[in-house]
């Protein structure tokens, strides 16, 4: 069974690789490369997979998940400029893909040993563009998957 909890945060970001020229950054990231940044109302859907506990009938108390999301996602990201205020995005380009992976990394250690395991992170940058991330396990098919260091 898969259970999902949704949470929102509003943040600004800019997608640029410092060692590349203005022209190259514009070619890769389009308007998202605007040096002064811009913002989104991000929506995160966190899905856990597991069987309901035979006594409680729950995979995980969604209140616990809500508290975890507030602590690990909303508190550090909401109403922040990600590049300046939310490491590792001072080093890593805060694309939708990289934010989804970072949210996975923040949450996954807290969800070990509970009845449900983390299944996926869906991150909406806008209602018309979203990314699903399934963890490193889900990257076995991807030979070149890796970090996106923003090497200055």
């Amino acid at each position, binding site marked *: 069974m898969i259970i999902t909890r949704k949470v929102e945060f509003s943040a600004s970001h800019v997608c640029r690789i410092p060692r590349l020229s203005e022209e190259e950054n514009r070619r890769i990231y389009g308007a998202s490369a605007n040096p002064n940044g811009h913002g989104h109302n991000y929506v995160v859907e966190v899905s856990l997979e597991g069987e309901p506990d035979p006594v409680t009938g729950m995979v995980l108390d969604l209140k616990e998940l809500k508290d975890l999301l507030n602590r690990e996602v909303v508190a550090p990201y909401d109403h922040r400029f990600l590049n300046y205020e939310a490491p590792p995005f001072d080093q890593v380009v805060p694309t939708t893909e990289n934010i989804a992976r970072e949210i996975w990394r923040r949450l996954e250690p807290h969800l070990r040993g509970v009845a449900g395991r983390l299944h996926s992170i869906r991150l909406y940058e806008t209602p018309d563009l979203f990314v*699903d991330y*399934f963890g490193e396990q889900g990257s076995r*098919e991807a030979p070149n998957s*890796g970090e996106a260091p923003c090497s200055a």
Partner: protein
Amino acid sequence: MFRVTRRYAFAASHRLHSPQLGVEENRSIYGKCNNPYGHGHNYLIEVSARGPADGATGLAVNVAALDDLVRRQVLEPFGHSNLNADTDAFHSVVPTSENLAVEICRRLKRNWSAAFPGDWPKLEKIRIAETERNIFELGADEIE
């Protein structure tokens, strides 16, 4: 591995009528959708591509390239069109949303490597919402 999904919209008309069936059969199978003059929908299309995030850019899909592909292959030919009359594929095939999904998937697959020359990303699936309550999903591997 990431799945990146982009949502697009276009408005089009169609009529569901199979020349292989009689008048009564068409009416009983397709109901109001068999109305001789046709009718229209605001179609919502979700296109999902799968791939690793590039080590340098942090992107799994170049969204501008995807937008350009979908605009040329789907939005421009189908937007504000009569699917039965204006699309060759639907002269002989009933433009149900199932068949529309197949046609869109074929068009994207045929032109995918020109838009995305590398190994990744790959087209994973498309999803069509004909209305908010009628939704059709097709995996790219399900068709040739």
